[in-house]
């Protein structure tokens, strides 16, 4: 079989190259990072971000945008830290209800033809409020199994890398290979033709939102496993980070064009960009600005490739 370089491949190539360039730069600045421990420290916090990015990608795949992912992941983290250690069944029940709520949100958005941005903006207040109610002041505790899972010592390849690979492959199978994935992307591409072919767009959208909620819950749990406890504001930045990750990974806001592997790579790249800056030692005044500059440079890299693509 001959291998064709399609637009989809180039789409994936861009984040991969950005990641590689950043990684080389980081290794050059800080050779110590080039070790089992170093890679783990660089990437372990990218695991929950990668999960949240996949969650965002599922919503973007049906042409919607989720502004509540940050607060929802925080909420899931609070539930995990408060209930999982002592009353795991209650914790699992609450998280299951939350996923159902996500699916319900998808249903309302579709049935009433509501703009997803507004509904998820509203829901972000709701999740934030619930998180504050569950955990008014920071605390809680990671269940032991979760903590040991997130700090597992995998042979040869650090856990963070293994986990990212697994997330990428699982998401790829669901979104790119399974029939449900085809339907989800189909709704993003042309909902009308999907419904004309006899599918229920409602069910597809509900499924996409439920899956998204599921991945967000996983993100919240992974986060607690890493930080050992939670607070109500713990993951607020995941909203923008997940959107940036999807875009960086070659996804587009409309048209159902997404790439799960790209999204995971995008999440890793964004995490690494932050570390790169730390290693540069910029004056505190400009550290925040430098984060912006790195985002610009990394996304600007896409330009070189898209020119070639054209």
């Amino acid at each position, binding site marked *: 079989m001959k291998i064709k370089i399609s637009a989809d491949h180039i789409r994936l190539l861009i984040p991969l190259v950005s990641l590689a360039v950043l990684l080389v730069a980081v290794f050059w600045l*800080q050779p*110590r*990072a080039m070790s089992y421990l*170093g890679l783990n*420290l*660089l990437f*372990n*916090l990218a695991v*929950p*971000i990668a999960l949240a990015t996949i969650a965002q990608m599922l919503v973007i795949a049906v042409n919607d945008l989720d502004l509540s992912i940050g607060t929802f992941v925080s909420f899931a983290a609070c539930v995990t830290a408060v209930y999982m250690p002592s009353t795991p069944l209650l914790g699992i029940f609450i998280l299951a209800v939350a996923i159902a709520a996500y699916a319900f949100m998808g249903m309302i958005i579709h049935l009433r033809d509501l703009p997803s941005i507004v509904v998820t903006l509203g829901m972000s207040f709701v999740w934030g409020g619930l*998180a*504050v109610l569950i*955990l*008014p*002041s*920071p*605390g*809680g505790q990671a269940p032991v199994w979760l903590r040991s899972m997130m700090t597992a010592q995998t042979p040869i390849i650090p856990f963070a890398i293994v986990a990212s690979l697994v997330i990428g492959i699982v998401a790829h199978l669901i979104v790119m290979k399974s029939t449900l994935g085809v339907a989800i992307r189909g709704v993003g591409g042309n909902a009308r033709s999907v419904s004309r072919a006899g599918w229920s767009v409602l069910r597809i959208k509900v499924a996409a939102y439920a899956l998204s909620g599921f991945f967000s819950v996983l993100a919240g749990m992974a*986060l607690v496993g*890493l*930080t*050992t*406890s*939670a*607070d*109500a*504001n*713990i*993951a*607020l*930045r*995941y909203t923008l980070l997940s959107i940036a990750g999807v875009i960086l990974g070659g996804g587009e806001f409309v048209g159902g064009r997404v790439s799960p592997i790209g999204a995971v790579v995008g999440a890793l790249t964004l*995490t690494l960009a*932050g*570390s790169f800056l*730390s*290693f540069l*030692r910029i004056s*505190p005044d400009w*550290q*925040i600005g430098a*984060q*912006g500059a790195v985002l610009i440079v990394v996304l600007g890299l896409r330009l070189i490739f898209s020119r070639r693509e054209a």
Partner: protein
Amino acid sequence: ANADTSGKKIALSNNYAGNSWRQAMLTSWDKVTKPAVAAKKVAAADAFTTAENQATEQAAQIQNMILQGYDAIVLNAASPTALNGAVKAACDAGIIVVSFDGIVNEPCAWRIAVNFKEMGRSQVEYLSKRLPQGGNLLEIRGLAGVFVDDEISAGIHEGVKQFPQFKIVGSVHGDWAQDVAQRAVAGVLPSLPDVAAVVTQGGDGYGAAQAFEAAKRKTPIIVMGNREDELQWWKKQKDANAYETMSVSIAPGVSTLAFWVAQQILDGKQVKKDLTVPFLRIDQANLEDNLKSTQKGGVANVEYSQADAEKVIADAK
């Protein structure tokens, strides 16, 4: 000194730079650590700030510091618990972690804490002296779900329990941002009965005063938070109509205390894990002095020297 710290590197991990208190904190750090580095007391004292005020971002920052080979990390934490994973990793790598202001509860770290509860309680105590017959209080809180907010508020409520002649008739979240506080106060004020005093968490006093003025209400006793504009306003009221209040906050220069404590620990000193620093309180009598020493538009501040740190450590023993 048992060991030589001239080869040791210290990093400041800061989670937020978006208000004048944090800016003063960074300036103090700079002012104190530069000469210390020049005098070869330590090899480096680098400050790092995250872009967004988020625990996850700060955790990544700490993990990077581990890789960069710092010997000590001085930490103002976004969350007392959410950084525990990263702090534990740092301790495991043999790094000294000293947290201050926003402290962490991971046992391996040192804490330079302000008794925030007491800071809240003392406001009500002060008011009980000014208003023996009591009255209605308006509480301006900080950011929901954050440790410091919870602590100060708990202290205030403790104070109200202790002095039951006071009653909290309204409580709003000002997110420690002057315009948010002003907005929130302006929103509830019309529906509040007479307010005798406003208890705050620092920095919201001026906004509250403005809101009362805009609503044409009698200015209550507003507890201030050591910002220069608050002190100016207080001075103006004091000169005009003998207005009386107090002002209390944690001094931003506590970062320099944490720096010296870290240096002392690196030096091999035995230091207790929990240290406390007093908060900085300004009263009617020392208002003018404090105003003079405070930078225009800044925050009342004190910086600490190595000797101060040694004293704090010794006192704790």
